[in-house]
């Protein structure tokens, strides 16, 4: 999605629009081809893990982004690096939704499915609506490959795919034919079939091709023969589309109107890493990342490791505990300490997060959530670490928690998490998830000098007197009256030597204290400090364009897109609904209770079993309607819209509303 435009878009509202305007053009050889204009397309590429589907999808995304469409992506791949070739567990897919208008999701279901082998067909066909375009690499539908996934006969030939528009193309052999003179062996040449496919799709959707050619030259600059082969395959695919009779139609999706400015496409993990670099630059602090490799967070470690010129230190630790420990040690020395992980890693880091709570040092903990519990679903998305983030520590250990809502928003969320950590001298947990991490969207590139000013003031002089009245003492736990933050005195600063640690501190001096009244006071003070952050959070935005909604839907994190798309459908059907999306999960915005109390019903969709709903019920005594799903995939907008419709209609308002199904006219978002 692009920016905060939440205006109704025809396609995402589900209302059918007569956008299709056919034109005809003459291709070389006199073949007459028509061009159909579409407002949006959802394409899914599926193949074996070794077929390069993620790379192909990524390139198609780049072409689409630079063409100016709005877009949203959903990579979906197995945890195994290379499951046995041609089997169902080895299927990897990439879904891209692009449009001539603002969109919010990668699409509920594909309009076009490209399958590179029988396993990909078997795993994905269920999602392709009847009538959808199905492109299959016929070369890979061999008896052996068919047998691997239990096809008794070849579905490309036995009529079982009649309800779809099937185009059977020998992608592999056309690739090897195109590369016959490349000097590459057959096996090597075959590996370029993904680029042939990309070329074909690029022709089909009028994508610009220069970017991919530049990319291939860059990617294989040390292997010019491979670069040349891939470029040749890419061009051959494009030319095949132009000349073949198999594809009589190509499609045009016009650029989406976007606010003036510079754009790029960006994934969540990339945006998060850039946000951390920017936070270091804007705070003037050196970034220190302590991390242990874990899916789906490792890409942040990889990305930050490239940016040493910004003074970013990355430390690949021996384990999750050392990762956060080193980050906290660096924070003690005045760095912006960061650790990145996923749910299992947060479990291991819990004790050190508690130490950071106790020592009141700034620390950024990024949890790119995945399916759980335990090892769970490493490559799939979920939002089930909310309660772990809030409460997964011994003792009363309050930690601010914030969550980005889209891939690009990960950048801003990193800056906001850093602001809180530095201002309030506290660890902060940022909850991203697998869908945000790997998904991509166009991103409006921010102006560097308009980013928040995150500079901090370190303690440089004594700040009080000892209990016996001795002047010129440094009191490490003397608090700022407004933020309740304690001073940050860096090792190396003379006269401010002090000791901190995990034992309870005496107020002001920070000395060890077992005094009952002091512990009670300090426990409440630590809580009050975190609660007080709410004063720095902007008022909650309520998106209710009609202004008369009696039902509100509340979400957090990556469900923003699907919930937003569902709300558009609801509004297009003549109903009203208010959307509230939380960035701050702890503390919650101060006005949230009053806002939610205005509605007859509050619906809370989550990719867990109702964790935010539990919090809202406990905190505001509101009978929240929890709608949950843990399939490892984002919500489908149509399903959410149906849930919302049921709730709205059962509250007995908006009698003029049309049935949702009729309004949506079968369109998918």
């Amino acid at each position, binding site marked *: 999605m692009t920016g905060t435009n939440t205006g109704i878009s025809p396609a995402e509202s589900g209302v059918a629009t007569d956008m299709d305007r056919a034109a005809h053009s003459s291709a070389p050889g006199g073949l007459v081809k028509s061009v159909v204009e579409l407002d949006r397309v959802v394409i899914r590429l599926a193949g074996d893990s070794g077929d390069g589907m993620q790379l192909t999808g990524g390139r198609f995304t780049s072409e689409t982004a630079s063409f100016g469409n709005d877009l949203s992506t959903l990579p979906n791949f197995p945890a195994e690096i290379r499951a046995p070739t041609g089997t169902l567990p080895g299927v990897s897919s990439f879904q891209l939704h692009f449009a001539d208008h603002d969109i919010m999701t990668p699409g509920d279901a594909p309009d076009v499915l490209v399958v590179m082998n029988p396993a990909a067909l078997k795993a994905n066909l269920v999602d392709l609506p009847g009538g959808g375009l199905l492109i299959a690499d016929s070369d890979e539908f061999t008896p052996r490959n068919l047998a691997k996934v239990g096809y008794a006969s070849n579905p490309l030939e036995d009529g079982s795919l009649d309800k779809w528009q099937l185009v059977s193309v020998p992608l592999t052999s056309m690739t090897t034919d195109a590369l016959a003179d490349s000097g590459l062996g057959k096996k090597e040449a075959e590996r370029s079939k993904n680029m042939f496919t990309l070329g074909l799709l690029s022709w089909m959707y009028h994508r610009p091709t220069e970017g991919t050619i530049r990319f291939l030259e860059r990617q294989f600059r040390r292997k010019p023969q491979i670069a040349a082969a891939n470029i040749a395959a890419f061009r051959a695919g494009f030319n095949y589309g132009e000349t073949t009779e198999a594809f009589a139609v190509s499609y045009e999706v016009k650029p989406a109107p976007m606010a003036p400015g510079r754009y790029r496409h960006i994934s969540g993990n990339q945006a998060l890493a850039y946000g951390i670099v920017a936070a270091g*630059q804007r705070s003037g602090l*050196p970034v220190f990342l302590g991390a242990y490799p874990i899916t789906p967070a490792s890409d942040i470690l990889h990305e930050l490791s490239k940016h040493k*010129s910004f003074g970013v230190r990355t430390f690949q630790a021996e384990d999750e505990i*050392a990762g956060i*420990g080193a980050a906290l040690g*660096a924070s003690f020395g*005045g760095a912006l300490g960061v650790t990145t992980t996923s749910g299992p890693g947060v479990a291991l880091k819990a004790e050190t997060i508690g130490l950071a709570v106790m020592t009141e040092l700034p620390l950024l903990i990024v949890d790119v959530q995945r399916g759980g519990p335990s090892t769970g679903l490493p490559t799939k998305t979920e939002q089930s670490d909310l309660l772990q983030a809030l409460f997964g520590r011994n003792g009363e250990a309050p930690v601010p928690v914030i969550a980005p809502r889209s891939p690009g928003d990960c950048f801003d969320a990193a800056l906001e998490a850093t602001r809180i950590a530095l201002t309030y001298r506290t660890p902060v947990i940022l909850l991203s998830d697998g869908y945000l991490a790997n998904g991509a969207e166009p991103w409006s590139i921010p102006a560097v000098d308009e980013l928040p000013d995150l500079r901090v003031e370190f303690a*440089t002089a004594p700040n009080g007197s000892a209990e016996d009245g001795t002047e010129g003492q440094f009191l490490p736990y003397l608090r700022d009256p407004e933020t309740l933050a304690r001073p940050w005195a860096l*090792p190396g600063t003379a006269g401010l030597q002090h000791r901190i640690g995990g034992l309870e501190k005496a107020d002001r001096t920070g000395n060890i204290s077992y005094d009952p009244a002091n512990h009670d006071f300090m426990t409440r003070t630590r809580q009050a400090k975190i609660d007080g952050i709410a004063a720095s959070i902007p008022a909650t935005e309520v998106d209710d364009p009609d202004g008369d909604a009696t039902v509100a839907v509340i979400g957090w994190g990556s469900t923003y897109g699907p919930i937003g798309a569902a709300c558009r459908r609801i509004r297009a059907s003549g109903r009203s609904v208010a959307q509230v999306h939380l960035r701050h999960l702890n503390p919650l915005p101060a006005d949230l209770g009053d806002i939610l109390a205005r509605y007859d019903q509050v619906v809370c969709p989550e990719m867990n079993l109702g964790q935010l709903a539990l919090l809202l019920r406990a905190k505001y005594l509101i009978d929240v309607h929890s709608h949950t799903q843990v399939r490892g995939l984002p919500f489908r907008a149509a399903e959410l819209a149906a849930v919302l419709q049921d709730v709205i209609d059962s509250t007995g308002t908006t009698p003029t509303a049309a049935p949702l199904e009729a309004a949506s006219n079968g369109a998918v978002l």
Partner: protein
Amino acid sequence: MTATPHVHDLGMPDVTTVSGAIDASIAANGPKQTELKAKDLKTDQEVRWCPGCGDYVILNAVQSFLPSLGIAREDMVIVSGIGCSSRFPYYMNTYGMHSIHGRAPAIATGLAASRPDLSVWVVTGDGDALSIGGNHLIHTLRRNVNLTILLFNNRIYGLTKGQYSPTSEVGKVTKSTPMGSLDHPFNPVSLALGADATFVGRAMDSDRKGLTDVLRQAAEHQGTSLVEIYQNCNIFNDGAFELLKDPTTGPMWTIPLVHGEPLVFGPGGASCVVRDDFGGLRIAETNQVDASQIVVHDAHREDPSYAFALSRLSSQDLRYTPMGVFRKVSKPSYDRMMADQLEDAAAQEPADLDALLTGADSWTVSA
């Protein structure tokens, strides 16, 4: 920051710029005071170890010798874990962090790697370093981060009131092992050498001179130094090192390690160390071997096998225990190499946030 002339070469790089904000904050504080006395390192906190604990002796030794290093006390940071020894930072007027069980080496690594201008120390115990924190210890040693680890080994869990530890001898009867412990103990020096530690030493709490000598060499070493300090817990494991402390038996069973000197020990130099037939070392009677067969101690050998063989001369019952510096070799330290990579990266490509955010494939939408 003001460059500080150190009395000793601590192997610490001359760091002129740490980072703008940190640098400015420290510089605002004025010149460094590097001439200290022992009392300058004491805090106003009452020392709360049991009366008679070996930790007092170690604290005194450290406070007495540290001023001779010529490091300002604000440039020293002591990080500890959990256990009796880990209360150490509270009694030192330096910067300090009393952290969580076993994690001090990890925390100190982050601090030392990001602040090469500091002198970072870890104080830990046998349970803290070798049991719950074993993983961090070995990885810190192999990385060779510039920090000094003091491992107080009392061969018992003191703070939890007397369970056996990973260095307790087999058969140790404790509250958790009424019929005797079953686990084979670690030899901390062997463990450290197995992790390719660049500096490994051992000293006795009550031996002020020997302890000070090993500590000084450890502090001067660039990279990770590990010093095992035998420390008596007079409450739960009293007399654990008596064999080595006793004026009669001590000289019989202690092998003093002096670089460049032949390994001869015992009353009248009656015992010595010679090579065995398998490439290791063994104890011999001095009058039974030719002087040329006696091993001359070389702490600087690149190959850690020799130092490891030395560490294997002693057994669980502490007979034939080498004391002193086992190994001291020079390798680039992690923090220095990390700083070098940052400098190289900055020289190759200046930091430009706008260029980073814009990337290679941006496009512009006009009004």
